[in-house]
């Protein structure tokens, strides 16, 4: 009759030491369309895939500006994401009012995680069904964090969440070593390529993705469609589908071309791998 005795409320433990409701919330993050983030020493780039629910609607916004120095990309329940972005905005404004300086990213993320944690320990609440990639700049440099419905948070060089994010993660894992010293434009290019990995067959167009940047001397902003399309064309047209070339700098070009082929098979491998990991491992590990 019952599939699971221990998942009817958030605060009930299973004998194996799991909180099923919290894990379900983390599943919601995986259902959402993909969002990715990566950073160098000075810049953070966030990107996401825009999927419309039907032919008749526009897509929902998945990247939000929190303050001049912080932005988020979300995957999961967009409504929850909006609520949390609003909270983050107000925290930034209040800090700015009191200290006339930007709120350190790490502190905002801890506050956000604490807020999410409370929902895992109150019988009358539910966890937020949204994962947030928080990118920002403060006196200690550029940061990228992932915030999870469980109240956990992690700092990353590069990360991807949402559906088919495993393919993007694989791409990022193979390339992240060079990200620290990447230029802003290379970072954006890698963001677009990582987004493309999650598309599975569909062609990358500016109409189905959003990219945003924050960095030294550059307030958080979403790149407009034309800019993104130009960047996509730069590597799609020049090198054809498989081998992006003729990008402004030769080194990045070589790297990009070299692993493009590899990334294609890798993508397929990653897909199986992703399926395998997602089944066995307790989502709490995320």
């Amino acid at each position, binding site marked *: 009759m019952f599939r699971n005795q221990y998942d009817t409320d958030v605060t009930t433990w299973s004998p194996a030491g799991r909180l099923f409701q919290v894990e379900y919330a983390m599943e919601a993050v995986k259902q959402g369309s993909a969002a990715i983030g990566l950073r160098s020493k000075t810049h953070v780039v966030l990107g996401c895939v825009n999927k419309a629910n039907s032919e008749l609607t526009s897509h929902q916004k998945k990247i939000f500006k929190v303050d001049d120095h912080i932005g988020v990309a979300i995957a999961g329940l967009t409504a929850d994401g909006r609520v949390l972005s609003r909270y983050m905005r107000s925290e930034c404004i209040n800090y700015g*009012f*009191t*200290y*006339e*300086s930007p709120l*350190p990213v*790490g*502190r905002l993320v*801890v506050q956000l995680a604490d807020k999410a944690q409370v929902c895992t320990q109150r019988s009358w609440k539910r966890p937020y069904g949204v994962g947030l990639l928080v990118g920002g700049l*403060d*006196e*200690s440099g550029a940061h990228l964090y992932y915030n999870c419905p469980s109240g956990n948070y992690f700092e990353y060089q590069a990360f991807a969440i949402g559906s088919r994010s495993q393919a993007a993660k694989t791409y990022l894992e193979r390339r992240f070593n060079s990200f620290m010293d990447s230029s802003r434009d290379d970072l954006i290019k890698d963001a677009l390529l990582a987004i493309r990995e999650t598309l599975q067959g569909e062609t990358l167009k500016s109409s189905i993705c959003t990219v945003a940047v924050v960095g030294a001397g550059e307030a958080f902003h979403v790149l407009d469609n034309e800019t993104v399309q130009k960047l996509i064309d730069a590597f799609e047209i020049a090198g054809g589908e498989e081998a992006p070339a003729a990008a402004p700098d030769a080194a990045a070009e070589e790297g990009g071309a070299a692993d493009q082929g590899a990334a294609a098979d890798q993508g397929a491998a990653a897909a199986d791998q992703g399926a395998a990991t997602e089944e066995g491992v307790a989502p709490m590990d995320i």
Partner: protein
Amino acid sequence: MESNQAKNSLLSSHDNIQRTQYPYVTGTSVVALKYKDGILMASDMGGSYGSTLRYKSVERLKPIGKHSLLGASGELSDFQEILRYLDELILYDNMWDDGNSLGPKEVHNYLTRVMYNRRNKFDPLWNTLVLGGVKKGQKYLGMVSMIGVNFEDDHVATGFGNHLARPILRDEWREDLTFEEGVKLLEKCMRVLLYRDRSAVNKLQIAKITEEGVTISQPYSLKTFWGFSAFQNPTVGAEGSW
């Protein structure tokens, strides 16, 4: 009903709170300036109970966290309360333990908010505060008054210092003042204040803050000469005045 009213007046409910209407024990001027490596600040150590010089060893220069130095004139107990606020602020800031810290600009702005907020409650903290500091090679010097007026400048002074020290500083202050020159200039200001400000005492401290941190000097006295004829007979040449 009657008993209720009696209770109210006894426990002093919200409609009759006593607010600070005047200060009790006060400290006089603080003078501060930017110099080559940071900020120098000077104040004497007197605490006046009205016009009585009641206390002679009050420290009015305090370090705040790693990067800031605070000097206060005005009501001394209010200053102590402000120090409690700041201690808590710095403690919680340190507890994050994440490599970020509040610099002088942040502390100054925080104090501005506290002062202005209390003035809006018609319960001001009766002080003029001077905040100086250095963080990441950036020198900072600012002031906040009891009603929340705040500004930054290369040199500042509170109370009587505004009238007697600022003109001297405007004439003689330079961006590249050395430590010795800075101390000399501050001492010149403090000496003038000692001569002309009746609530100043001849026991002062000078504090410096640089990238390396805060050092506050031991209390010391200035050499004085009271034999000027103008001091002996101040009304000569000013007939018709007092």
